[in-house]
């Protein structure tokens, strides 16, 4: 295996044998899956010289022979420096879905072209660059434990640094966008502000909203700070109303109000209503994104509505039937509604008992009821029986889940 670090700082000679400089870097261009080395960067004293690949005669581990040495010329717009731009930068390892640092680069010959085929993110790359590879090898033999190779194929990493990402920003955002929002949130958390906004800019609002819902409050507010007001409001609209309300309540009041004014009126009013409940109450935990249907409907009509307007709602284990005044009249398991004949009135499927919880009760009581009655979600009602929202079991579980990082 060949690594960039083995090439760097070697002497470069002319065909005649005279030394013309020291190899400091190589340039590369993206061409197919694996980038190809397009030239050498030499140091001649304090000056830099560029040798295009066409003038490179021979490359082995300890000799570089070149035909001609040009004066330093600017790089072509598609060219990047491998050591300067990629080494020591952060990349996303798509396999493990986390952010790693490039310790070395693996190269390979394809005919007469040299290609970048992999990224070394492990201890071996570090040791090699510091000249300590033999020491590490000796240590692992003595200890009988070998640290992982830490080699990742080039096409399995995504650059996120500014200089490297410009090479293929389009591709990278597409691929990153396909990760699970929870993984992507973790990756975004590890990035610096500049890299973060680069990654986030390429995502659409819905995707960004998914990430926001998975992120810690600290990360949420940091992400929101990096967006302009208009985009921030759009993302808030895409988020589940309860998540959006929680996020807004973390912000300074004037900023939160400013964002709500920019939001679509309907979404904003839903969020504003949720914000009315104090932290630690059932109201602050519930969502308004669930299936609410008039009690007079039939099962068929309800299913038709679910397929249409209800398709994007958050909680979808039960349908909640209400009367004309908005009072909760029955809770229907979705399974029962699906199995019922189309013309069956919903009212005939109502169970004898309903479990509900009040909006101003402590949030913990919702969790207790969910567990006690083995429910997936729990309707929240006012004193007069009007339905306000629903608490899902996953949201309630956040009450007992303690984050492990300080």
């Amino acid at each position, binding site marked *: 295996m060949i690594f960039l670090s083995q090439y760097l700082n070697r002497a470069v000679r002319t065909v005649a044998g005279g030394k013309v400089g020291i190899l400091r870097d190589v340039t590369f261009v993206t061409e197919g899956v694996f980038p190809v080395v397009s030239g050498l960067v030499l140091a001649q004293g304090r000056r830099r010289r560029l040798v295009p690949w066409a003038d490179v005669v021979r490359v082995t581990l300890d000799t570089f022979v070149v035909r001609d040495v040009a004066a330093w010329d600017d790089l072509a717009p598609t060219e990047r420096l491998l050591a300067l731009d990629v*080494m*020591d*930068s*952060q990349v996303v390892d798509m396999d493990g879905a*986390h952010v*790693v*640092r490039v*310790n070395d680069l693996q190269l390979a010959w394809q005919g007469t072209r040299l290609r970048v085929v992999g990224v070394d*993110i492990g*201890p071996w790359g*570090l040791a090699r*660059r*510091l000249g300590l590879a033999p020491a590490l090898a000796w240590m692992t033999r003595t200890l009988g434990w070998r*640290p992982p190779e830490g080699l990742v194929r080039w096409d399995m990493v995504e650059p996120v640094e500014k200089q490297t990402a410009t090479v293929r920003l389009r591709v990278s955002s597409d691929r990153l966008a396909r990760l699970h929002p929870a993984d992507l949130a973790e990756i975004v958390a590890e*990035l*610096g*502000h*500049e890299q*973060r906004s680069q990654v986030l800019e390429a995502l659409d609002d819905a995707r960004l909203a998914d990430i926001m819902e998975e992120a810690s409050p*600290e*990360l*949420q*507010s*940091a992400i929101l*700070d*990096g967006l302009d007001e208009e985009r921030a409001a759009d993302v808030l609209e895409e988020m589940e109303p309860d998540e959006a309300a929680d996020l807004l*309540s*973390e912000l*300074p*009041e004037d900023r*939160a109000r400013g964002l709500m004014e920019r939001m679509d009126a*309907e979404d904003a*009013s*839903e969020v*504003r*209503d*949720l*914000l*009315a*409940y*104090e*932290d630690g109450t059932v109201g602050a935990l519930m969502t*308004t994104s669930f*299936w*609410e*249907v*008039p009690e007079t409907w039939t099962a068929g009509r309800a299913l038709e*509505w679910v397929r249409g*307007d*209800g398709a994007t*709602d958050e909680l979808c284990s039960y349908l909640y039937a209400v009367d004309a005044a*908005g009072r909760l009249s029955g809770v229907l398991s979705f399974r029962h509604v699906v199995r019922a004949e189309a013309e069956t009135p919903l009212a005939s499927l109502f169970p004898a008992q309903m479990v509900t919880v009040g909006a101003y009760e402590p949030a913990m009581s919702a969790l207790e009821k969910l567990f006690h009655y083995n429910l997936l979600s729990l309707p929240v009602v*006012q004193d007069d029986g*009007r*339905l*306000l*929202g629903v608490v899902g079991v996953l949201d309630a579980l956040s009450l007992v889940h303690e984050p*492990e*990082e*300080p």
Partner: protein
Amino acid sequence: MPGTGKLHVSEAEADALVTIRFNKRRWLMLLGTLGPGILASSAGNDAGGIATYATAGARYGYTMLWALLLITVALAMIQEMATRMGAVTGKGLSSLIRERFGLRATVFAMACLLVANVATTLADFAGVAAAAELFGVPRWVAIPIAAMGLWWLVARGNFARVERTLMGLALVFLAYVAAAFMARPDWSEVLRNAVVPTWPAPPHGVGNREHLQGYLLVLIATIGTTITPWMQFFLQASVVDKGVTIRQYGFARFDAFFGALTADLVSFFIIVATAAALFYPGLQPHALSDAASAASALVPVAGRHAGLLFGVGLLGASLLAASVVPLATAYAVCEAFGFEAGLGKDFRRAPVFLGLYTLLIIVGAVVAMLPGLPLLPLMLVAQDINGILLPVILVYMLRLVNDRRLMGVHVNGVGYNAVVWGMVVVVSVLTLAMVLTSLWPA
């Protein structure tokens, strides 16, 4: 209709309630952003810090107070620099060093940090030993228990709560504020010394060279314990973790300044209290070789319980720093080299992280257990090592914070650069002077 208008609270009613929730939250937010700076500075008042300030007071009276004032200004600026870099870049100091200066420079920075932090951890285990001996518990009993306890904490991962408890224990040192007042020092003398640089006269029977050497040792230790290298890594990482951006920077900057001020206020009173109680001008300097003599400055407050009070505070401060410093080291090193890090991860997932943490605790604990080791001088020397290595880390920080590509318009102003570069030069010159005075033939 389905999907809309499900809530039945009037607009005005909701608005009134919303105001309540926000106002509460605003306070929480202030508290949430406050913290890293205060924690970093107060963890600086650890075992080594107490030993250094007490020695400064007992040996040189009030004459080091003016230096403390200047150090406080520098500390506030340096902490603010670390906070600003975290807020602007969203990256830790280790990451920035690696990306800007490459691998070899990173290895050098991490080696310096590691040496300083091993010394600090050692000093803090020495603090545990000193506290234990005040209670009559031998060090070979106390240290293994403390070391295993701290290690277990990280394995269990309920670190944050214990951290708060230990910080509470360390608040005992506020007793020095009371002790300083009750010792009835000559306040005009104290204030004069705080502003006017004074050179302490060598006591009888102490040669000039020996006097200068001792003074430099304590002065560098005072700088090194007040502005520690690890603190800057820790502070910047916490700012990043809290998601502070340059937009909400006001709170964070306040925190950096406020933390520096409060921490050094405590240091100030430790020096005043020990100077008033233990310093007699012209006489041989107080040896201050064990914790009991350092505790005796607290006698005006606690009477015969002074030793007990001092012991509790010392134990809390030592344990806090002995857990935070190895942890901060492990985080910084792993961030620099891209190894996986995090509390609650097992050895297979984060071998370097846990390995480093374990190694620091073992080295600190084992060395501090060596019988016959003088604990207080040991703590002092550890702070000297921090002071000597401080300029290295400051140079990295200065070059980063003045990099326009990185910081944009948020680079240092002229005043900042003058003070912090001045600090680099002063500490280097002091170190050189210390080396020269010890090499010069008598």
